[in-house]
């Protein structure tokens, strides 16, 4: 660490010169802030690719019949879109980018507990991506099973399953190591005086997420390995011809993949809980209720996986139990929404771009959450199962929830990350177009699903045409908004105005250090005496 002997400010983490130069100074850096940005750039790249695939699919669906691609290509496209968006973009998403960048500073630590393991996680993540991508170029080409890799088709298809499945396994391993690192960091490295209930809500969310990553991911890991064993060794784990049970695969898959939804949404909720008090300029309403609901979601989230399988064949008792638990897991999410809205009550709100994202997050999250209850009810689920309704619900929660929170967090922590400001008017315009496009894209799917349009087909009946036109146009409007947002952020990072240490008046510790922060974050580890959102002084 450079000595601060001449009264010069310490160089920021962006300027700091280690033993490596250029690109190597980034890809071999163990600094949590640089690793966070490595994830950011990787995730944005693959988000762009996944988005492009999605746009092409929406173009195919703009009219009935074959428009630009046939059924085989469409099957591969929705599989790739799912695998990239879920395993490469949304699951690492907020934890790997903002968890890495912000969480250690928020708890008053110089870095995470295992900096080298942190870098290794990123390398394993890159390896997983390369494995997934290698399925495109080798063997039978991109897989066509859907991102769920359902048996028995996943070991019968002639497409290139092995690299995709092993890639997903590897990405899971990276996710486990990140979760492990964060749990230990939060246990061991909180600043003196920061008791558990003085910790900001974003680290709390990451703590809950870490446990899910740790305890759920290995189950899908072994399940994917069983698919590999099935394809290469002919062990009949899930093959009915050999005595195996395909439904058992679905159970094992969702035992992970439902909690994985909470890996996506909990950090998003954490980021929203940071943004709202900063712009409401008052303390968050019901801090402890939010903490407890975070832990409740993490816990109950393990026991609801069966609601993905209401039509697959389960005993009546299992159906009722899973349905009931699904309704129960909605309660802590609702508690959070009430707390966020109560935080805004009687606040003098500073309306800025991150606030727009946060408030629109609450809207899309509520739409996604309430339509989830329709899917959680046994009778209605049978009607809308495997229709466009599910696609609409899923994207409102996962893209609406995580995506809006991600972009909100991006606009909130941007000045801290780059030490510069973006153009607020362009950012607001981008948000508005994105928000309109998003709703136009996904809300017709609810109607289409109820009317009976099945998902995962390149074609549909003529009576579904009008809804699909709106949806496809919405997709391109949303993409336009996204281009404005990304260009604006890139311009801001390059030549925006210099940002102050605390442009929003935030009270958590990351706003007490310079923007961008120096290598080890704090000159002296702070002693915490106040609550995290204490706006009284």
């Amino acid at each position, binding site marked *: *660490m450079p000595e601060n002997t001449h009264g010069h400010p310490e160089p920021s983490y962006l300027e700091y010169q280690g033993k490596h130069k250029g690109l190597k100074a980034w890809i071999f850096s163990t600094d949590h802030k640089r690793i966070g940005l490595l994830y950011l750039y990787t995730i944005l790249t693959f988000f762009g690719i996944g988005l492009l695939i999605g746009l092409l699919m929406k173009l195919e669906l703009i009219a009935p019949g074959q428009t630009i691609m046939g059924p085989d290509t469409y099957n591969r496209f929705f599989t790739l879109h799912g695998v990239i968006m879920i395993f490469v973009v949304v699951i690492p998403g907020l934890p790997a980018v903002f968890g890495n960048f912000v969480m250690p500073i928020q708890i008053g630590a*110089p*870095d995470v*507990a*295992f900096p080298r*393991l942190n870098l290794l996680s990123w390398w394993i993540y890159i390896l997983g991506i390369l494995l997934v991508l290698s399925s495109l170029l080798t063997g039978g080409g991109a897989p066509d099973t859907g991102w769920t890799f359902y048996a028995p088709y996943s070991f019968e298809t002639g497409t290139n399953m092995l690299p995709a499945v092993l890639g997903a396994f590897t990405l899971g391993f990276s996710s*486990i190591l990140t979760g*492990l*690192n964060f*749990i*230990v960091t939060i*246990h*061991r*490295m909180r600043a003196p005086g920061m008791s558990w209930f003085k910790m900001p809500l974003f680290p709390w969310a990451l703590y809950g997420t870490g446990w899910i990553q*740790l*305890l*759920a*991911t*290995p*189950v899908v*890991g*072994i*399940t994917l*390995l*069983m698919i590999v*064993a099935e394809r290469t*060794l*002919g*062990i*009949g*784990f899930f093959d009915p011809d*050999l*005595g*195996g*049970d395909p439904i*058992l695969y679905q159970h*094992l898959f969702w035992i992970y993949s439902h909690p994985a939804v909470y890996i996506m949404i909990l950090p998003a909720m954490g980021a929203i809980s940071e943004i709202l008090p900063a712009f409401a300029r008052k303390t968050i309403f019901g801090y402890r209720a939010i903490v407890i609901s975070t832990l409740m979601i993490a816990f109950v989230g393990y026991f609801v996986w069966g609601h993905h399988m209401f039509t697959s064949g389960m005993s009546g008792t299992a159906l009722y139990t899973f349905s009931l638990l699904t309704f129960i897991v909605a309660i802590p999410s609702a508690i959070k929404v009430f707390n966020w809205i109560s935080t805004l009550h009687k606040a003098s709100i500073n309306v800025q771009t991150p606030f727009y994202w946060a408030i629109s997050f609450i809207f899309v999250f509520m739409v996604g959450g309430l339509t989830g209850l329709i899917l959680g009810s046994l009778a209605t689920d049978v009607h809308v199962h495997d229709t466009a309704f599910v696609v609409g619900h899923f994207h409102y929660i996962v893209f609406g929830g995580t995506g809006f929170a991600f972009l909100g967090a991006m606009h909130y922590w941007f000045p801290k990350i780059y030490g510069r400001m973006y153009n607020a008017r362009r950012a607001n315009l981008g948000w508005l177009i994105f928000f309109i496009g998003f709703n136009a894209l996904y809300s017709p799917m609810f109607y289409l699903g109820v009317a009976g349009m099945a998902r995962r087909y390149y074609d549909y009946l003529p009576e579904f045409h009008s809804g699909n036109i709106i949806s496809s146009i919405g997709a391109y409007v949303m993409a336009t908004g996204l281009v404005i947002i990304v260009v604006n952020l890139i311009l801001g990072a390059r030549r925006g105005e210099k940002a102050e240490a605390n442009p929003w008046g935030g009270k958590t510790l990351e706003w007490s250090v310079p923007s961008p922060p120096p*290598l*080890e974050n704090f000159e002296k580890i702070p002693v915490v005496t106040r609550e995290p959102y204490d706006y009284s002084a």
Partner: protein
Amino acid sequence: MHEHRDDTASKIGMWLFIFTEILLFGGLFIVYAVYRYRNPVAFHLAGEELNVIIGAINTVVLLVSSATIAMAITAMQQGKRRLSVRLLWVTILLAAVFMVNKYFEWGAKFEHGLYPGSDFLYSLSQGDVLFFGLYFAMTGLHALHIIVGAVFILFVIAYIRKGKVHETRWQLLENAGLYWHLVDLIWIFLFPLFYLIH
């Protein structure tokens, strides 16, 4: 950057990693439980094909190896570095004995055509196919963990040589011990499930 050392953190980290390993095997144990429940007779008869004596010997070998690595940790904490290294080598030797036994055991099964994908196995009942599929998958994954654990111990020996692990800094050694006990513990469950319950 100054050196940051926190032994408790690395111990917690190891325990968390062990949780993930238990859940990894947990998936296979669930599959085993479901298929045993559905094919009780076939699993009963197929289980009798396994060699209880070799299985029992391997159980004893692993239990002793868990004892030797625990002794190696205590020896290191008492400053007896050479004794500690010797006990680690004994642990690795026992791991090798386990693998040699496994080799003969698996070899015999292959000779009888009892391996996944063989025409003979496919001619048997579905319960037999599942039993031997699970047998090879679970003991195979376990054997892989034996190899990983042994390599971990080799690294620790190298670190002791380099002086990076010593009597006041033995957390890495203890972590290797924790991992080795996990590998041992999984076998303690595999042995009765495949060899003993009829």
